[in-house]
């Protein structure tokens, strides 16, 4: 193995950190160097993520046994130092992250990055937090990366200014700070009882815990689960989510569609590692909470009157679907759930960016009015000179694409099909796989009212999405009063098209993708492989 290749797992964290820090040194008035830096950093992350994805497949044998790569930061061995662990699930998540970040970045070049200061640096820090949370093998380090991504997301949420954003951000920050305190309490209790923070080490020692230590560790794990569920947007801990996502700027909301999935990832990771975990990681609590989340999402979708708010509720619905699939506790559900995760993150990302363009078509003077009002204060406060004239910026440069309205309509239909899970796109395959896996659970035997509940909620979610989206679509595209055809620039339309094409590629390549996801789910089913990869001299499983 190439000696440089072994440092590859640290790249998705180091590159955005270095790029973001370097951008702070470049003056705010010099836009081109920061754009180049951001683009290069994101491309490097995408390349590193894809390489990691390839290394974890079975096609490259010998480098990482069982597809699990361990990188000890600073060379300190596992239980003492912090390790980064790349398994198939982590590699998948960071690839998804980079694949979403690239179009979001290009989209924001159009005008979003000029609405405030330090947009690109904050975006890189957000990516760093996400990548770190997906890669780390240490519970406290997971907390640190959660905080990195949250701190960046607080600042990105108010990017562009305006009362609705600041108000939503205030609630968002309070809820997430309280959740972070719960996270810390959970971590401290687990450390106090188990005596380690390394996830593999915790999983290794978990079955041997007895008496009072067991009680404290289980209570700590439950509190930790509450914190994860807040981030994942599970009912009744998700009332902050619709307002925050609907208020955020289009590219920010698009990248937020993956931040809730960090909570889902953390729950899946801990649930798969621990033997016989407590609620909410195991047992019926996660499942019923997830069904309630889906119902909340369905009601919200039907009630929402603005497109961004509706999409925010589809984010809740998808989080509920994922948690319900995990909570059902059947091994066959994980791979379809991961496929659903891929499709839903890409689709909601594209959808949020699309709203940034459809907003402009309803009124002649779009949200630039709001941003222009808020902008001078920001620019004055940071004393970065004259704010750029946004009205001029909208007219100038960039190649406008022809048939803008046709493009918007087509993209809207594709996104609606993806989100509701109708044929022929990836959303349908994901839902079909989830349903067929649920029927497998039913056929294996045992009375499973839970499986029927999941089937009902899945179908109801699709129906509600269809009703609400066709209603909003008709109002947007067919009611012609006071509509202006917006000028769409290629760098705005391109990213949406890219994400939709990615979803179509996912549909075409569903077979190979499912094979990979099946192997990812197999790794998750065998926590001993993970534990022995991190701690080579771990306790052998008791037969």
């Amino acid at each position, binding site marked *: 193995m190439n000696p440089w290749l072994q440092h590859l797992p640290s790249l998705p964290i180091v590159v955005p950190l270095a790029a973001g820090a370097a951008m702070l040194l470049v003056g705010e008035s010099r836009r081109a160097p920061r754009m180049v830096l951001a683009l290069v950093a994101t491309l490097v992350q995408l390349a590193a993520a894809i390489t990691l994805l390839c290394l974890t497949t079975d096609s490259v044998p010998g480098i990482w046994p069982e597809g699990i790569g361990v990188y000890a930061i600073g060379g300190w061995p596992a239980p003492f130092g912090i390790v980064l662990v790349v398994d198939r699930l982590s590699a998948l998540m960071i690839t998804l992250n980079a694949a979403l970040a690239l179009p979001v970045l290009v989209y924001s070049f159009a005008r979003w990055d000029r609405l405030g200061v330090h947009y690109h640096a904050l975006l890189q820090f957000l990516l760093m937090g996400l990548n770190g949370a997906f890669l780390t093998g240490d519970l*406290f380090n997971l907390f640190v990366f959660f905080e990195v991504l949250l701190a960046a997301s607080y*600042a990105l949420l108010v990017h562009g200014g305006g009362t609705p954003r600041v*108000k939503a951000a*205030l609630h968002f920050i309070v809820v997430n700070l309280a959740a972070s*305190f719960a996270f810390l309490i959970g971590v*401290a209790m687990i450390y*106090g009882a188990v005596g380690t923070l390394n996830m593999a080490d915790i999983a290794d020692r978990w079955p041997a815990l007895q008496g009072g230590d067991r009680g404290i560790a289980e209570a700590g794990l439950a509190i930790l689960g509450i914190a994860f569920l807040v981030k994942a947007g599970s009912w009744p801990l998700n009332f902050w989510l619709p307002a925050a996502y609907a208020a955020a700027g289009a590219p920010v909301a698009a990248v937020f569609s993956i931040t809730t999935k960090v909570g889902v990832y953390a729950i899946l990771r801990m649930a798969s590692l621990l033997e016989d975990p407590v609620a909410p990681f195991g047992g019926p609590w996660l499942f019923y909470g997830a069904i309630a989340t889906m119902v909340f999402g369905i009601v919200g979708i039907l009630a929402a009157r603005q497109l961004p708010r509706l999409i925010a509720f589809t984010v809740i619905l998808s989080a509920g679907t994922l948690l319900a699939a995990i909570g059902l506790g059947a091994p066959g559900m994980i791979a379809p759930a991961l496929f659903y995760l891929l499709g839903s993150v890409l689709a909601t990302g594209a959808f949020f960016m699309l709203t940034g363009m459809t907003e402009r078509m309803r009124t002649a003077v779009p949200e630039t009015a709001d941003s222009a009002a808020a902008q001078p204060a920001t620019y004055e406060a940071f004393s970065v000179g004259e704010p750029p004239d946004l009205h001029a910026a909208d007219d100038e440069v960039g190649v406008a694409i022809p048939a803008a309205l046709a493009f918007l309509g087509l993209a809207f239909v594709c996104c609606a099909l993806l989100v509701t899970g109708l044929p022929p796109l990836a959303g349908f395959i994901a839902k079909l796989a989830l349903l067929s896996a649920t029927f497998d659970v039913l056929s294996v035997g045992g009375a499973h009212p839970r499986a029927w509940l999941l089937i009902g909620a899945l179908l109801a979610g699709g129906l509600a999405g269809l009703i609400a989206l066709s209603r909003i679509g008709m109002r947007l595209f067919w009611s012609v009063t006071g509509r202006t055809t917006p000028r769409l620039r290629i760098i705005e339309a391109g990213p949406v098209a890219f994400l939709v094409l990615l979803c179509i590629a996912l549909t075409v390549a569903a077979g190979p993708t499912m094979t990979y996801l099946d192997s990812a789910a197999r790794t998750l089913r065998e926590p001993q492989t993970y534990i022995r990869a991190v701690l080579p001299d771990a306790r052998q499983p008791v037969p």
Partner: protein
Amino acid sequence: MEIVFALAIGVLTASGTWLLLRPRTFQVIMGLALLSYAVNLFIFGMGRLVIDKPSIIGADNATDPALYADPVPQALVLTAIVIGFGTTALFLVVLLALRGLTGTDHVDGHEDDA
């Protein structure tokens, strides 16, 4: 010592939670600050409370862990303090921005008419 420590954490948590649920942004930020003190003390307490013991293992001494204080919670609490401090400062900025934009210090940006 344990009783006093536990009481301190309990009082801080209770006051913090109560303040967090109040409608004024200033009360909320005070609540967050008190909660973060409670959490930091809690993390510290999870390393077991000991007095007059070093947290760094000397080369000459025996390696009996009972002779030392647990250094890990001390490192964790340092990280937690820094992060809590940073995010609370960020919250302060958002709080002031909302005050400036809406002219009220209610968390919802408008007074309750009830």
